[in-house]
Structures are given as C-alpha cells and as structure tokens.
C-alpha cells in the first residue's frame, strides 16, 4: 500500500503539479540507484538505468492505481530496466570472465569477508555471476530488504518461487565467495 505522503504526491502530479514528480524522484533516487548499482555493477550504467526508471515512471504514473504499492511498482520498473540494460551490454564478457581474476587477490574467507572493506565489490562481482532471476530476487531481499510477498509482487511470481530463488541464489553466492577464500 502506498504511504499517504506518496499518495499525495501522486495525486498532485495527476492534477498537473510537476514539482510533485521532482519530490518523488528525490525521495526514491538513492534506493533506485542502489538497486541499479547492485544489479549492474558499472556506475555509469547504473546511473543511466536509474534515470530511465524515472523517465518510464513519469510516463506511466498517471495510470498508477492508488491501491497499489508505489515502491513495489517502481522497483518492478527498475528490475525490468536493469535486466534490459544487462541484455544490451556485454553480458557474455561478464559471464565468461573468471571470478577468481575479478576478485581481489587477497580475498579473505567468507567468515572474514563481512568485515572487509571490499565487501560491496566482492558481492557485486559475485552477483553478476548469478542468472538474472536469482540476482533480482536476492538483491531485492538483501539490498532492499523487501519481504517475500513484496518480491513476489515486483517479480510477478509466487511466494514459493521467490523462496526457491532466494535459496538457490544464496547457495550459489556462498559457493562463489568460498572459492575465493
């Protein structure tokens, strides 16, 4: 469910107040950019994708139903946009690059990694190795803190499917990060 604050902004936008959209962008820019950054890794691609998300949202906002959740709605746009960007960019190059070469050479074991400064980088590299569906599910869960039900709404999947994808994503990530230990 959309919060009152967001509902007011959307209502103002529908009545022609363009500054309401600016406020929505300011409110969600960090979350959307962060999501794009973990989905795409490359800062420039992430910035372009985040901008596209808001452009798409601008076009579609007048059809937004007030009973829906705004952030679920905009996350859905963000995930779709990021997947499009990945398809367009050199996906094969990323996939074929061996993980051990990408990761810092002195990468610590998984147990110590969480204390390291290179955590975000290591996670981002490992995330790029996951299939698109698994990456979207785990990023929404771990980075954005979405519940299983919210992820199911964003990804248009059942809660059971979301649980399974998160479980598989975690197993694969553990294996990938362990390899570097």
């Amino acid at each position, binding site marked *: 469910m959309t919060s009152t604050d967001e509902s007011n902004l959307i209502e103002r936008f529908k009545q022609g107040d363009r500054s309401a959209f600016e406020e929505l962008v300011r409110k969600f820019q960090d979350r959307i950019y962060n999501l794009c950054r973990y989905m795409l890794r490359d*800062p420039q691609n992430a*910035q372009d994708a*985040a901008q596209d998300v808001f452009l798409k949202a601008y076009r579609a906002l007048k059809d937004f139903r007030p009973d829906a959740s705004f952030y679920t709605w905009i996350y859905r746009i963000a995930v779709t946009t990021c997947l499009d960007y990945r398809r367009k960019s050199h996906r094969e190059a990323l996939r074929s690059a061996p993980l051990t070469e990408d990761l810092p050479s002195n990468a610590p074991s998984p147990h110590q990694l969480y204390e390291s400064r290179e955590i975000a980088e290591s996670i981002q590299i490992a995330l790029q190795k996951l299939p698109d569906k698994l990456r979207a599910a785990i990023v929404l869960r771990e980075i954005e803190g979405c519940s299983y039900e919210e992820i199911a709404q964003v990804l248009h999947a059942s809660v059971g499917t979301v649980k399974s994808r998160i479980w598989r994503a975690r197993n694969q990530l553990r294996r990938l990060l362990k390899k570097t230990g």
Partner: protein
Amino acid sequence: MQIFFGTKRAPQSFNRKREEKMKCRQAKKTISPYVDGALAPGEKNRFESHIRGCASCREDLEETRDLRRMFDSGRRFSAPYGFTTRVLANLEEKKRSRPLSPLPIKPFFLRAVQVAFALVIMTVGIMSGNLLLIERRAPMGQTAVRETFSLDLFQAAPPDSIGGVYDALMGPHHER
C-alpha cells in the same frame, strides 16, 4: 545401495541414517527462510531441533548468516550529485524532441510496418521492370516476339569521344 529382503529387518542405524538424510535435505531448504524469519512456529521448532544434532546443517546455517552479514555491512550507494536535476532536464529534452506518448508504438508493430513497406517497394520495382518488355503482336500463325530495351538501342559512340577512341583501338571487328 543396501537392500534388505524378506522378514529380515534393516539395522536400526541404517534407518536412522536414512531418516537423518531426509531431514537434512528438508533442513537445508529451510535455512534460507529461517534466517529471513519467514518460518511458521512449528516448522521453526522442527528446524531448530534438527540443527542441534546436525553439524553439516549448522555449518550451512552459519555460512548463510555470514552472507547476510556481508550484505548488511556492504556499502549502500547514493545517487550521484545532481541526479534529480538531470532526470528533470532529460524529461524536458524528451518533451521538446517529441511528446511523451502514453501508448508508445510497439517495436514489433513498427517492424511489421517496415517489412510491409519494403515488400510494396519490391513489388512495384518488379512490376515496373516488366514494363520494359515490349510484346509485339504477331501475324496469325507466327510466334510472338518479345523485345527488351538494351544497350543495342543506343547509337554508336562518336569517333572523337573516349568510347570512339576505345572502339578504334580494339579494331574494326569489335565495332558494332
């Protein structure tokens, strides 16, 4: 795999091993919703009692918790400075270049129109090519003659032109 026939009962240790294996399979799938706090109380209790007696699942649980801690302590990226301004500027630019359509033309539809247009152009080209063919009406009992326009219809090159010089060099047997 061991098979036990007839009335001979399987040793208790064998049954226990099988039972534990089944439990482990279920437990490993339960680790993920457990760390997310998404288990029903009954399921949670069953999982915890399994974990107490199973070192392998306990290890998997610890690794999954480590992974969660990694994500928690990982960096949160903020949008670059001036992000909102750039979004709004992009919107203005897009509005100026073309109005934002609520129902954009689907790429598939656009492609279909392009293909249809190309087919029309090709058909017109083939049909107009046929116009260059002249069919002469033959007198009764004779075969019709078809003529096409060709370079033979053109006059011979004048002697002072490049074509004329070329013809002269090639000799009289090359002349038309």
